[in-house]
């Protein structure tokens, strides 16, 4: 069936096409601009839902393959395909994009350009998830970072304390050096792009070494697989670590996370959603797709490192989130804390935890998407993200408050949300190899609840400042739609995650088989 043959292209290029069409539309015609963005993202979204259910998990492996030769000499081809690991992430990306379009509905300042960048951002992210060619994987990876710069720099907002830092008298003080204009959106944009690019270069080095080392003249992931033994143990580890740290910086793994909360805070809501929801998972995904897939045995050797770092991520991120006054900083640090659970699941290297980790990626995308959307909504209404100066908004915006409770539930991983299933699986998988880390991780859940409740109370309960008398609830369906979609997704897949689990495990299984059989082979070889 032709649709199936080009399904991935549709998902990938629909937003792109939307972006290109938008270039030719007048920026004045706001409704048209929005509609085009919405329609193109909807096509992508609908197609990814279809993808989830069309994916034949019984068969497993890579499906919906599309391959177009690009450069035979260099071994580059435009090669698309999804396995169980990428399907949920594709869905998450397109869902957040669709939701993000509506979250950004009220942007009037250069809306056309905004939507163009947003569509490019999302489709580039999807591109990473569906690429089976390392060259294009890297290409999309870089491309997904690119729109972040203008999105933050132009449509972003300065974070708290920005004005203080404009004081020229302070500009050469030591404090300024240590806190270098860190409240401006430009700073955030710069930091983000610098950091991610630096990480990308490190990862690129790893990719190139792999390319060179195998000597197969190809970037095709499927062909590259299974040649791990050609590398010396040292080179293997070096490549793996390059790949790991390169990609982990976007994830972000502690201590390479500091770009992330700033980036979240400065970005407009939709961008934060995409950023925390799917952009960060590029890190995990790429580690699995490249590191795990190509170097299974090395992965096994280094898994312990991941398990250690992830605990720092969880606890450190959680603790820092505790003291943030800025709503988006709280969510940002919470995201970087939650990434630790995914790493924990990845480190345990067994079916249940890996499946859980991937499911958690999807779950977190929805949960954090909800929270960012709501933080954005509150910001739109009050023009502040400073928690102490808010309060008592619950009376004014009951819908947002209710939705926030669900977002909080999801973020904490209370049962009924898909996060819980992911969390449960991660814990179940990681208990045997890493009991200590597991216990610390569950304590992290309590910390999560603590700071999210603090934020919840700060925003919605207590006495309301009279100056917020004008704020109103998310009443038009346009405002509610994105939240409803995400809530529905979170609860629906929380109660009925079976399809997801089958799909993901079909993708995880071959990877783990590689890891464990490779180990067995190596052990046998060592013994012989």
């Amino acid at each position: 069936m032709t649709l199936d043959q080009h399904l991935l292209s549709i998902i990938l290029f629909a937003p792109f096409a939307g972006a290109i069409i938008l270039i030719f539309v007048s920026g004045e015609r706001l409704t048209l601009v929005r509609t085009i963005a919405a329609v193109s993202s909807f096509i992508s979204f609908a197609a990814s839902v279809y993808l989830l259910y069309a994916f034949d998990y019984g068969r497993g492996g890579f499906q919906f393959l599309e391959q177009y030769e690009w450069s035979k000499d260099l071994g580059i081809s435009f090669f698309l395909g999804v396995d169980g690991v990428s399907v949920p992430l594709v869905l998450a990306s397109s869902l957040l994009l669709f939701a993000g379009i509506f979250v950004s509905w009220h942007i009037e300042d250069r809306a056309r350009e905004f939507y163009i960048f947003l569509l490019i951002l999302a489709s580039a992210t999807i591109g990473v998830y569906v690429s089976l060619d390392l060259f294009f994987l890297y290409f999309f990876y870089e491309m997904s970072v690119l729109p972040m710069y203008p999105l933050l720099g132009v449509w972003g907002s300065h974070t708290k304390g920005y004005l203080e830092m404009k004081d020229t008298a302070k500009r050469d003080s030591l404090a300024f050096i240590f806190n270098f204009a860190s409240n401006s959106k430009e700073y955030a944009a710069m930091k983000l792009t610098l950091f991610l690019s630096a990480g990308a270069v490190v990862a690129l080095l790893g990719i190139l070494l792999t390319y060179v080392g195998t000597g197969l003249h190809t970037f095709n992931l499927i062909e590259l697989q299974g040649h791990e033994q050609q590398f010396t143990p040292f080179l293997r580890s070096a490549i793996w670590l390059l790949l790991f740290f390169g990609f982990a910086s976007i994830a972000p793994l502690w201590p390479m996370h500091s770009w992330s909360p700033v980036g979240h805070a400065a970005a407009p809501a939709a961008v934060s959603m995409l950023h925390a929801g799917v952009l960060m998972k590029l890190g995990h995904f790429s580690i699995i797709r490249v590191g795990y897939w190509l170097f299974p045995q090395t992965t096994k050797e280094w898994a312990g490192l991941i398990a250690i770092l992830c605990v720092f991520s969880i606890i450190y991120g959680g603790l820092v989130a505790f003291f943030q006054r800025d709503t988006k900083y709280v969510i940002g640090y919470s995201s970087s804390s939650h990434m630790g659970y995914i790493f924990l699941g990845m480190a345990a290297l067994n079916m249940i935890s890996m499946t859980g980790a991937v499911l958690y990626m999807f779950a977190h995308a929805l949960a954090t998407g909800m929270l960012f959307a709501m933080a954005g909504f509150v910001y739109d209404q009050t023009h502040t993200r400073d928690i102490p100066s808010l309060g008592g908004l619950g009376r004014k915006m009951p819908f947002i408050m209710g939705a926030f409770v669900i977002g909080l539930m999801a973020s904490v991983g209370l049962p009924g949300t898909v996060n819980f299933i992911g969390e449960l699986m991660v814990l179940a998988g990681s208990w045997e190899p890493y009991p200590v880390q597991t216990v610390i991780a569950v304590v992290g859940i309590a910390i999560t609840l603590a700071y999210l409740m603090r934020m919840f109370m700060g925003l919605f309960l207590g006495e309301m400042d009279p100056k917020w008398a004008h704020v109103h609830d998310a009443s038009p369906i346009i405002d509610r739609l994105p939240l409803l979609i995400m809530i529905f997704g979170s609860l629906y897949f929380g109660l009925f995650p079976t399809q997801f689990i089958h799909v993901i495990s079909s993708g995880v299984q071959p990877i783990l088989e590689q890891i464990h059989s490779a180990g067995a082979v190596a052990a046998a070889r060592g013994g012989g």
Partner: protein
Amino acid sequence: MLSVVLIPLLPLLAVLINGVFGRKYLKESAHYFAVGAVAISFILSISLLMQMMSGAMPIDVTVYSWVFGGGIDIPIGFLIDPLSSVMLMVVTGVGLLIHIYSIGYMHGDEGYYRFFTYLNLFMVSMLLLVMGDNYLVLFIGWEGVGLCSYLLIAFWFEKESAIKAGTKAFVVNRIGDAGFLIAIFLIAQQFGTLNYLEVFDRAHQLSTGMATAIALCLFIGAIGKSAQIPLYTWLPDAMEGPTPVSALIHAATMVTAGVYMVVRNHAIYDLAPIAMTVVAVTGGATAIFAAPIGLVQTDIKRVLAYSTVSQLGYMFLGCGVGAYAAAIFHLVTHAFFKALLFLGSGSVIHALGGEQDIRKMGGLKAEIPVTALTFLVGTIAIAGLPPLAGFWSKDEILGMAFKGGHPVLWLVGMTGAFLTSFYMFRLFYVTFTGETRMEPAVAHHVHESPSVMTVPLMILAGLSLLGGVLLGFPPEQGWLHDFLAPMIAGEGAEAHHDFEIVDLALMAGSVLVALAGWWTAYTMYVRKPELAPFWAARFRGAHTLLLNKYWVDEAYDAVFVEPSKRLGRAWGVFDRIVIDGIVNGVGRLTTSGAWLSTWIEKYILYGFLNVIGYSNHLGARVLRRLQTGYVHHYAFIVVVGLFLMVYVILWWHGDNFSGLLVPR
């Protein structure tokens, strides 16, 4: 069977009727149901007694399974045997009289219906106590009478002292109950059942140690309920309740429950000589300990209260020396004359409009002759002068003690008897003879009580006069002994004992002691009234000691009550500061960790990056023209990256270099 169940059920129905409808509808007619129910119970009790007298087998009725499971089945069940039928008679008989008396005494009280409700509830509990066929039913009654005692002591709930006394009674009783509960657990564990008959059947299987443990724990219960040392302090305070309550509960029935319980469990006590000694010594000690306090009390009811404590001591003394029948005999006679005395004092109080201080009485003989006369009968009975009831029963206990080889206890008992006789006659003389010391306002209204009160007094006086002879003559072989014999058989010395010269000598001794007490009282309070203050001044220390009841209440307060309160307060503080402090501390530790992490984030991680950024920034300030943003950084890196990629590829495949640029 039905009649057995009806005995406690009827008062229970009365409780329900009065409890539900009393306040609104019955009000002053509440006593119809109350008295009626007790009267029927009394008649049924008589029929049961007849049945028992005719030699019928004990009746064991199981009504329904109450608590069961795990191999234990504890039913609500009743056992009627000679012992319980005697107790039934006392409870329902004396109870009925006191019910009738109360009609007059409580007349016009706001809580009339409430009083009868409580009184009937008490009857129910007491009946369960004596009729239960297992320990747990006994325990229901046991606690039930405690409850009613609480309710009735605190009946006038606006009176501070009454409420405090009620609470005290309940809590002190609970201490005893705790011991009783442990005994029940031990029995249940040893026998797997709580039914008396089964337990006593197999009692001999107990080791001495276990029997002693059970007996002692049971006795702790008895100490609490029967106001023995060291748990007697609640009983004098309990006099705060209405007088019929004192008569019924704190003289005739409830406080004797401990004696009943010990006698009921004689099969276990017989196996535990140490426990027997403890019972005897405690009884003796209480008898001699409480009596002197009675010497100096000025509240008419408190004298009687200490007398009760002392008399209960005799009963335990009897139990402890194995004279179970004698103990029950004394229980019965004591019920007669002590109820009489209390009701008599009630009549006095009633006559005087609530006055209880004997210093403000005197010369009442003429004003209220019936009361005075009956009170005299009671006094003689308790003093132990023949042929009144007290003589026979007390003498029997003392005789048994002496002959059982406990001369010290006998001596103690005799001393107690002297004191009893002394303070009781003192009470009589001070109250009823001599010059009146009444306040004029009171004196004006003095009147004899209505017949609904005096008739019970007369009946009780009759019983006090004749009861001893009817039930217990000849000594140790009287009707009561024969009747109870099958129940407490096998104890050798008691069953068939010939009347010997030693018995006569002992009797004579008792009489002499009682007379001595009388004479002393007569001398001090009638013949030479100046003697009393003289002796009091002479032995000021002892007098003060007695007046303050040996400061036992104060000592208990200091040793138990205050430390408990202090502990409660200290733990409360501990809870808030330490335990909660730990919780909050963990919270604070987390926030400290959060603060530290935030600091690291800000000044180390950010700082590190920012220093790099800042140097860049400085550069940018130098090259002002390039300061339009930082896109160039990014672009630069992207370009470098792509160049690098291309470079490596080309370097690796050097031979393809030309091929890439120039198609072959």
